[in-house]
């Protein structure tokens, strides 16, 4: 079973502010229980408005109201002290919570300090536990630190206050928060995939499909080309065999061709040998160019000049620091260790020294004869390869000519066929190269042939497509979820509003039995039945009835703090309001003036026995101060008195005493 959330005000303490310095406690006895009803009587001019603003600031964490008025305005008149404070003690779910407003009048700044018994001690800033933040914020605090103006707002058609308070109390607002979370998550999805609309998603899909289709087509084309090539090569082999067989029957030509082919094989072997020798020279940079040789040598010599690597490796100094004495015999103290450490960082490690020494072995002898020899050799080899290349081509041409010198009609036709096939194979091979290439300069997908390039593009687009697909699926799911949440919200609110309307009307009837005012329903505001207007007193009565119904059904034990609870209400209705007050909340704290007592207090006392009577006033009238000192309990500060006494409370008449 869920535990009810409970918040109580245990008291507050004000120091060096416009209201008299005082410390009020609403505790009943020694424990943390509070009085059901605490009446704080404050005559005009005692700083009631100041106290009200301080209380609202402390319980909302919003210091705008203080800053708007000007921080210096809160300073006690005539005080030389530059600091002031207002500290509210709360009990939240059984744990102590204290919110302090700290004023620095010198710099005109105000800061919060929070102390939570289950938290990290006293911390700067407004940091109540997260669960308490639901109530201790600017928009909600005004519902339980009740501002009379709010009563009118509950009934105003253009105000959403009624809906706001129902949403917060019933936690229906959380459903909207889920909607916001869904939106945020979807926005993140969009940020990741870059697609927010169905059109965008379809574009991604088409882009993916375009590459996929092209790739499939290219693979089929390549398969066909490879098959054609294979078939052409088979045919060519067959024709070559037939041509060779025919040549075998022509003795003179056959012998000449055999001689030429043998010569060609020798030339090929020589060419291959030259190629390898050239390659072996070229892959040595110093043999390729004397400039390279010079640069390599210059680099190695500069390492020598710089004494790199050193003869001593870093490890030597690291080990030295662990010794008791230095090699010079001095003790290895902190200073010596630091100096060695400094030197150590300038040295290379032993392993890298090995590599550098091997690099330095690439230094060449000062004479450049080796290069000259190698370079000359390379030039000779390349010259020989050129001659060899010409000879190979001539030999191949001669072989072809010998073969073509046969004038047999069938053979000529066979050779023609063979030549055509070779051309065809070359064409196919060139075409296949395009498909097997690793790059492609085509400007668009449809004219791209490289399968590797298309596969890479497909991979990229499929990732984009999948991401946008995920986002699209999430969007559909979130829309459905939001619809469900909206329906749940509507249904829950309809049920809750209906129940609250019913309960509120029962209470209104109790307060105003001879009045026909009733609530027809709750929209964004309290919709009155067939009535266009109501008096201030009626509005307040309705607001109390509404809030009582709401707090009762919500499962939260919150305090209810009201300034002048009965002031605008006709005398005959005050009693009914007083009957309602004990039912409003677990703890009711009210600021009251002496003229409000009539018609209200008597009825209140009839309905509730646990009432605390407090009177706060400035101690500038000696006769009242004297009387207060005979009260059951009092405290006096430099500029005020706080008296806890029922008789004193009832008899207190500041105005008359002054006269």
């Amino acid at each position, binding site marked *: 079973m869920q535990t009810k959330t409970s918040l109580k005000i245990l008291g507050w303490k004000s120091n060096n502010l416009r209201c008299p310095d005082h410390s009020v406690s609403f505790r009943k006895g020694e424990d943390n229980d509070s009085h059901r009803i605490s009446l704080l009587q404050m005559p005009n001019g005692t700083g009631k408005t100041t106290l009200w603003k301080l209380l609202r600031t402390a319980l909302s964490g919003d210091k705008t109201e203080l800053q708007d008025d000007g921080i210096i305005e809160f300073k006690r008149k005539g005080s030389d002290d530059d600091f002031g404070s207002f500290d509210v003690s709360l009990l939240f779910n059984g744990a102590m919570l204290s919110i302090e407003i700290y004023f620095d009048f010198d710099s005109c700044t105000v800061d919060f300090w929070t102390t939570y018994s289950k938290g990290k001690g006293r911390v700067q800033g407004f940091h109540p536990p997260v669960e308490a933040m639901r109530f201790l914020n600017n928009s909600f605090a005004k519902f339980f630190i009740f501002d009379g103006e709010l009563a009118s707002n509950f009934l105003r058609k253009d105000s959403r206050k009624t809906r706001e308070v129902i949403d917060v109390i019933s936690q229906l607002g959380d459903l909207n928060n889920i909607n916001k979370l869904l939106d945020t998550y979807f926005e993140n999805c969009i940020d990741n995939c870059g697609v927010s609309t169905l059109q965008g998603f379809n574009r991604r899909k088409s882009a993916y499909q375009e590459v996929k289709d092209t790739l499939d087509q290219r693979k089929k084309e390549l398969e066909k080309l490879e098959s054609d090539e294979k078939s052409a090569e088979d045919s060519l082999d067959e024709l070559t065999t037939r041509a060779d067989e025919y040549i075998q029957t022509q003795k003179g030509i056959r012998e000449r061709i055999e001689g030429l082919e043998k010569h060609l094989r020798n030339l090929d072997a020589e060419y291959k040998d030259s190629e390898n020798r050239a390659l072996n020279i070229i892959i040595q940079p110093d043999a390729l160019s004397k400039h390279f040789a010079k640069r390599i040598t210059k680099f190695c010599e500069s390492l020598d000049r710089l004494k790199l690597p050193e003869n001593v490796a870093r490890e030597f100094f690291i080990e030295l620091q662990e010794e008791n004495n230095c090699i010079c015999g001095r003790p290895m103290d902190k200073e010596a260790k630091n100096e060695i450490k400094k030197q150590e960082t300038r040295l290379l490690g032993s392993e890298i020294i090995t*590599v550098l020494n091997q690099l330095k072995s690439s230094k060449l002898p000062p004479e450049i004869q080796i290069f000259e020899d190698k370079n000359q050799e390379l030039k000779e080899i390349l010259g020989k390869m050129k001659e060899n290349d010409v000879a190979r081509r001539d030999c191949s041409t001669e072989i072809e000519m010998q073969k073509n010198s046969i004038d047999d009609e069938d053979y000529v036709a066979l050779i023609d066929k063979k030549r055509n096939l070779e051309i065809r194979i070359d064409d196919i091979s060139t075409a296949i190269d395009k498909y097997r290439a690793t790059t492609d300069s085509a400007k668009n997908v449809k004219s791209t042939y490289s399968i590797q390039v298309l596969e890479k593009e497909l991979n990229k687009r499929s990732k984009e497509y999948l991401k946008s697909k995920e986002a699209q699926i999430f969007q559909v799911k979130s829309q459905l979820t939001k619809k469900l949440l909206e329906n749940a919200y509507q249904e829950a609110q309809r049920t809750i509003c209906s129940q609250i309307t019913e309960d509120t009307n029962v209470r209104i009837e109790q307060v105003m039995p001879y009045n026909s005012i009733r609530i027809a329903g709750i929209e964004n505001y309290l919709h009155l039945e067939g009535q266009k207007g109501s008096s201030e007193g009626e509005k307040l009565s309705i607001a109390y009835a509404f809030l009582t119904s709401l707090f009762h059904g919500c499962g939260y034990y919150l305090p209810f703090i009201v300034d002048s609870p009965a002031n605008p209400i006709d005398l005959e209705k005050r009693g009914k309001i007083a009957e309602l007050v004990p039912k409003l909340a677990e703890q009711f704290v009210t600021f009251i003036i002496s003229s409000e007592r009539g018609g209200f207090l008597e009825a209140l006392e009839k309905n509730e026995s646990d009432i605390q009577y407090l009177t706060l006033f400035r101690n500038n009238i000696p006769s009242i101060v004297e009387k207060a000192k005979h009260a059951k309990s009092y405290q006096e500060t430099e500029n005020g008195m706080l008296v806890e006494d029922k008789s004193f409370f009832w008899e207190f008449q500041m105005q008359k005493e002054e006269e």
Partner: protein
Amino acid sequence: MADRFHAPIESRDWFKKLDFSIRMYDYYFCLMLGLVKKRKASDEEMVNSEEFVEYFPEPFGSGKNKIISLFLETELSLLGIDLSNREAVQKILTEYITPNSLTWLTKKGLSEMDKYCAGGFEILRDEFDDRPASKYAFFLNFERLITEALATTD
């Protein structure tokens, strides 16, 4: 995983007809041109590279000290570091050289060498009208390009 040499993907097609037995030949020819012209590809251009081997394969293994020395000399020159500045030279050596890699190069060192290779490939592409069809034609033109480039740098 050990760091590997990276060569431009496109160079694979470009050298295809020359049919060198290992890819390191393609890398070497490009690297030499990049070093001689002190031309490096940018980080963005390196995206189009592919890795192939994590050591200097034979027949390059025995001459790797010369290749690395030439690379370091070029890099120091390109960075504007005077060869008499001990501290600056040592800093680069520490950044680029490591005994813990088969190439003796750190990740950073290898990556910078790869950039010369990619820069050299650009030169090859620009200077050759067609892709070389025979090793003889390629050697002749490569040797010419190196000689011409060094003549203009001295």
